């Protein structure tokens, strides 16, 4: 199982973000690099990409405040 952590370099400030939407529902099989969620920070909306291929498990619902490095989901091998 691989954690989906918000990359430290996704944005360059110390601001918190908000997980706006998941691009696919819990349990979807995703490909490495595919955009799986949208995060907003200071009026910028940023894509979160899958760190690996596998089955998505969502740990954080939309509208949740998040920080860089936070684990928001996992990818389970299929």
């Amino acid at each position: 199982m691989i954690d989906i952590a918000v990359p430290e370099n996704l944005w360059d400030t110390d601001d918190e973000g908000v997980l706006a939407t998941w691009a696919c529902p819990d349990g979807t099989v995703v490909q490495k690099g595919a955009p799986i969620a949208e995060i907003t920070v200071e009026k910028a909306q940023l894509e979160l990409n899958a760190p690996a291929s596998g089955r998505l498990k969502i740990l954080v619902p939309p509208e949740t405040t998040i920080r860089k490095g936070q684990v928001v989901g996992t990818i389970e091998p299929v």
Partner: protein
Amino acid sequence: MTTASEQLALEERLLEEHATASRARSALLWECEQALVVSQLDTLLPQFEDAARNSAHDGWPVAVRKTGGSAVAIGPGVLNFSVIESWRGTPPALAHGFDLVCAPIIRALAQLGVTGTIGAAPGSFCDGRYNVLVDRRKIAGTAQRRTKRGEGGALLAHALILIDADPGELTGVVQSFYVRAGGGRQFDASVVTSLHECRGNRGDRDLLADFAQSLRLSAA
């Protein structure tokens, strides 16, 4: 005149093209039929569907954008300015993206004798740190979107500039949406201005075309 949805789709297409292959910077200037453009977070509001239906009934159909921020009302008299830029390796600073649109707007305003600065305008619709202000009132708002593909990506920076649209009307449209949608936001139209107001409401002919031309030169 095109619709907001058509223009947003064009921006999305260009963003994807710039993300998948490094390209020279692109810029778009556009005006569209009136519309209420909301963010994806706005669509999660408890009464969003009803609010969108009512807004359309009032003549402000809703389009959903993928840049950050919150709802804005646009239409004739509002100039939209978008810049799309590829990047490779480390994503550029957020401030860089906002500067891609704010700096040319400030230079274009200066050519028309108006002094612009960057900052927040508390109480304005879709407020943030990177508005363009004239005398502390918001004349342009900005938002960004970033997409990553492989080792690179692209950013879309967007600004809306009030040329001769009525700040009170636009603020009222956004306020009505949030009242209906359950957003609980309160706005103050007095902290928003337009280029027309900044130039003393003089009878400028073709103010939008003049500013657009200045912006083209400033962005080149």
